[in-house]
Every structure is written in C-alpha cells, then in structure tokens.
C-alpha cells in the first residue's frame, strides 16, 4: 500500500489520537496547576504553624506574607517547568508538526520501539546459529556458523538492493513487481508519521530495517535442515536467490498488498508476523532441499534409524532462549507502532504460546519415549512461538495457550514422522516452521476474537499457496544447482567433517600446532 493509502487507513486512528491528546493536554494543564496549589497549601500551613509557634507576627500578616511567598514560589516553579522552551531546535520541531504535535509524540515512541524490535529480531540470528550448532556434530560447527554469518549479511544487502521495493511495490499486479534499491527513505516526508500514518508508525528507514531482519530468517530456516552434508557454495547461491527474490515476491502477495488481500471474502489473509510468509515459507523450502539432498550418511543404516546426537545441548538451549527473546521483537514489532493495547496483548499471547508449547512437547515426548527429551522441549517452545506468530494480536490469552499446546503436540509427532520416512532434518526445521506455520495460520481463523472474519478455507488457501511457492521455487532452483554444481559433499568429506573439508578450520582445535 502506498503512503496515501496508509493515510486513509490511519484517519480514524488520527481522530482517536486527537481526542485522546486533547484530553491529555487538559490533564497536563490541571497537573501543572495542581502542584502549585499543593505548594501553596503547604506554605500556608508551615507559615501559619510557625506563626502560632513563635507567636510573632499576627495571623493576618502571616497569611499575607505566605500569599506573597506562594506566588513568587509558583512563578519560579513555572519557570523551572519550561526548560525546553529555551531549546530552539526542540520548539521548532514541535511547531513544525502544527496541529499534529500530539501525534508526533506517539510516533517517536513507536519508531523507537520499531528499531529496538529490529535489533531483537537480529539477535534471533545468534539464536539460530547456536541452536543449529548445538544440534549438529562438532566437526561441522564452523560450517554452520559460516552459513549463518553469510545469510544475515547477504539477506540485508539484497533487501536493500531490491528486496524491500519488491516486497512493498506500491501499486502492482498483485503477483510480481521487481523493485530497485532503496533511496533516501527519509526524504519526501519519510522521516515523520506521514510515511505510514499511525498504523505504521515508523520512518521509511525504520520500516526497511525492521523488515530486512525478517528476510534473512527465512533462509536460515533452510540452513538448519540441510546441515552437515550440503556443499557450501551451492547453498550460498541458493540462499541468495531464495532470500533475495523468492522471499520478497511471495511476501508481496500478502504484506505488499498483493492478491492474498482478496482471501477470506475480501477481508484479506491474516498472517500477523509471518507464520506463513516467513516460517512456512522457510519450512517448505527446507523440505524441498532435503528431498533433493538426501539424508546424512550413517543416519539410515540397513533400514534402521541411527540417531546422530547433537554435540552441545547447552548451545542448543542458549539458542532457543535467544530465539524466544528475539521473538518479542518479531511479534511485538509487528504491531508496527507502540499502541499499548495490541503491544501488551501480543507480548502476552506470544509468551503464553511458547510456554504452552514447551509443556505440551515435554508431556508428549515423556510419555511416548519414557524419558524427557531436552531437544523436544526446546522444539516445543519454538513450535508454540511459530504457532502464535500468525495470530498473536487477534486471540485471547487462553486462546494463545491452546494454540501453543496444539503446536507442542504436533511438533513432536511431526519430527518423528519425518525421521521415519527418511527425511533427515537435524534441527526439526521442517516440523517447527513448516508444519506449525500451517497450524498458526489455521489457528488464526479458529481462535480469532471475531475482529477479522477469517475463514479456515481462506487461511488454508493462503498458506498452501505460500508453502507451495516456496517448495516449487526451492525444488526447481536446488535441482538445477544439483545438476550443474552438485549440492552434496563427497562421503569422505562428510565423514571427515565439513569444517576441515570445506573450511580447513576446526571449531574446537585441541593440541594446535602453530608453525
């Protein structure tokens, strides 16, 4: 949607804002005066008491003296309450807002929250890096970390070069519009609430940086599933195409104002923070790549499943907690302003779903496997988070708990299922992001509080379209790469470990010889 579209959307919000702000200014005026009266009263009391105690001046004189003192004190205090008036730049900035000075206050708070949220989504990359490292073997750790470093670097850059404007093309045919590099996003009023109104209360750069952080998370979902046997350069090429082109194009179908706005009888597809366009998108791409890549050597021997345990449960746990923390920015920032109502709700539903997911996974895996499995508990947290990502702002607290519980149950069965049908996913990315992404989208229709009029069919069509697009794009591209460069390391390289084979470096060198 372009800027004028946002303005139209924001008009009712602006109205409400002006009403609230008028009330606020009245309150402020009263507040300013109230303490004057309090001070006056206090001075009166002390003077009068003092007068009685010392019995020097007469009561009338004392009161007069007190009155003079009060006025002088009040004036001095009033002066003290206006320090910013001496700051000409601040005054100019507020005056420049004209009638919208009150909205500017909300806007600055919102923009601040947006950039903080962007930083929190960024830290999720550290979470992915540590989680993936922890759940794979130590001989491949450098390789995992390298892929994660590349993905965030490449993701942000491609988003700047063409991703952002492809993701949000303004008026387009609803399916595809290749955009160019970002220009001066502060220009043309992009540095104030005119950019997106109060419903997208951030500057152009704020919008860019927040969305850019999301883009790279889609590719990193794939990197976990293909770990320990994918060849490095082919994967980097695939990830660049995937994040650079596929992600913004598919994202434009929904967030960019594309054809998915016609779903649900015109009410539009509901995917609050990206259960479909980020998580299911990544999950089904991962599925495609893993199908082409094949399982790790030694995982399936003589028709039997031989588990390959991760090398560091502490790293895996650290990763999940970092992801949990970052998710507050992922979902919280998707409120797209600092509107207190939705913000508090989203923080609450996000957390409750994560916790419920953990408990559900713990219960299911404990009963099923007779022993409590830490990696399942961790995946349960993530499952709950993915499940609530589509609907965090339109469900109740109890609803989010239900969503998390179901996600936690689903993910355990899904992980075991994929393992059984010989789809080797070392970190459970397909189950956590793909399968629970679908659940989150459907849960939006099931648990919504009625504000969006969603239908299960409408939501299903949307998420199937996104998942299918991700799967098809990835299958085709990865297959082409396989035919041209190959996508898998040799069996010897896989045995030796990718750290030595691809990087010539060790993650945990012991007895290093320095020559």
């Amino acid at each position, binding site marked *: 949607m372009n800027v004028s579209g946002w303005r139209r959307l924001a008009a009712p919000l602006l109205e409400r804002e002006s009403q609230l702000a008028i009330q606020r200014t009245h309150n402020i005026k009263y507040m300013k005066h109230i303490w004057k009266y309090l001070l006056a009263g206090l001075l009166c009391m002390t003077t009068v008491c003092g007068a009685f105690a010392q019995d020097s001046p007469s009561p009338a004189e004392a009161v007069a003296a007190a009155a003079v003192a009060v006025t002088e004190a009040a004036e001095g205090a009033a002066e003290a309450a206006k320090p910013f008036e001496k700051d000409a730049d601040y005054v100019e900035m507020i005056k420049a807002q004209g009638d919208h000075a009150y909205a500017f206050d909300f806007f600055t708070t919102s923009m601040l929250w947006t950039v903080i949220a962007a930083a929190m989504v960024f830290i999720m990359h550290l979470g992915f890096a540590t989680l993936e490292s922890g759940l794979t073997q130590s001989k491949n750790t450098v390789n995992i970390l390298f892929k994660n470093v590349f993905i965030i670097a490449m993701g942000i850059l491609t988003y700047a070069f063409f991703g952002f404007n492809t993701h949000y093309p303004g008026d387009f045919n609803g399916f595809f519009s290749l955009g160019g590099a970002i220009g001066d996003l502060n220009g043309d009023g992009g540095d104030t609430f005119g950019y997106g109104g109060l419903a997208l209360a951030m500057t152009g750069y704020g919008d860019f940086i927040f969305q850019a952080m999301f883009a790279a998370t889609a590719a990193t979902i794939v990197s976990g599933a293909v770990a320990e046997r994918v060849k490095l350069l082919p994967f980097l090429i695939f990830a660049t195409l995937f994040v650079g082109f596929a992600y913004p194009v598919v994202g434009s179908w929904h967030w960019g104002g594309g054809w998915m706005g016609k779903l649900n009888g015109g009410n539009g597809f509901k995917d609050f923070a990206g259960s479909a366009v980020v998580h299911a998108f990544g999950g089904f791409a991962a599925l495609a790549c893993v199908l082409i890549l094949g399982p790790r050597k030694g995982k399936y021997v003589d028709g039997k499943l031989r*588990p390959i*345990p991760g090398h560091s449960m502490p790293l895996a746990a650290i990763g999940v907690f970092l992801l949990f923390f970052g998710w507050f920015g992922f979902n919280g920032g998707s409120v797209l302003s600092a509107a207190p109502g939705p913000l508090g709700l989203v923080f609450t539903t996000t957390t409750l779903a994560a916790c419920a997911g953990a408990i559900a996974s713990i219960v299911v*895996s404990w009963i099923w*496997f007779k022993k409590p*499995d830490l*990696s*399942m508990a961790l995946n349960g947290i993530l499952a709950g988070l993915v499940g609530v990502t589509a609907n965090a702002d339109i469900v109740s607290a109890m609803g989010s708990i239900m969503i998390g519980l179901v996600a936690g149950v689903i993910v355990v069965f899904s*992980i075991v299922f994929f*393992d059984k049908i010989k789809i080797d996913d070392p970190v*459970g990315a397909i189950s956590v992001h793909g399968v629970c992404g679908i659940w989150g989208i459907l849960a939006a229709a099931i648990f919504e509080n009625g504000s969006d009029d969603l239908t299960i069919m409408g939501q299903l069509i949307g998420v199937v379209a996104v998942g299918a697009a991700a799967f098809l794009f990835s299958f085709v591209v990865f297959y082409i790469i396989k035919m041209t460069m190959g996508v898998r390391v040799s069996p010897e390289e896989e045995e030796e470990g990718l750290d030595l084979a691809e990087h010539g470096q060790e993650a945990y060198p012991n007895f290093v010889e320095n020559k």
Partner: protein
Amino acid sequence: MKKIEAIIKPFKLEEVKDALGDLGLEGMTVTEVKGFGRQKGHTEIYRGSEYTVDFLPKIKLEIVVNDDQAGPAVEAIGKAAKTGKIGDGKVFVVPVEEALRIRTDEKGDKAV
C-alpha cells in the same frame, strides 16, 4: 622402573589419587577415555529413536614407579577403585626402558 596403567571409573579418581599419595607417589597422568569390558553399554534415546552406546566413560591413569613400589601401588589402586560392581576396571603393569626428568636431565630411577 615400571609403568602402571589403570582403567578406573571416573568418580574413583580422587580416591585413587589419595591412595597413591599415601604411598608417597605424587606424580601421574590421567586421560578421559571410553571403553568396555564385560559391562554392557546402555540405551540412549534421541528425538524418539533408541540407540545403544557400548562405550562407557572411564579414566586411564598412568604412573611410572620404581620396581619395588609397583606391587604396593597396584594393590592400593585396586583397593581404592573397587566398587564390587561390573565395570570397575583393570590395572596393567609394563616395564619401562628409560626415563628422563626434563628439567634436571636426570635419568633412570632418579627420574621417576
């Protein structure tokens, strides 16, 4: 000179070290190893799939002593490392041809 190699259960290390110290033997080298003898491995479960781990963590303790200290040392280790359950470990004694204390260039029995 004799080298004593003892494979013991990891939690017994402190006891064995103290027992050897009581004999006046203060120097040793330890390594973390895995192994099994008659003690069967155990079953682990990872993400719903069971697998058997045959190798169990042990500690290998190596100490070089003078000929006359070898017997008492083996006895002390045996007593300190025993739990009476399968997997207690084994002790081996091998002859040592030469020894050198690097700091002082002492050789032979003086180096032990």
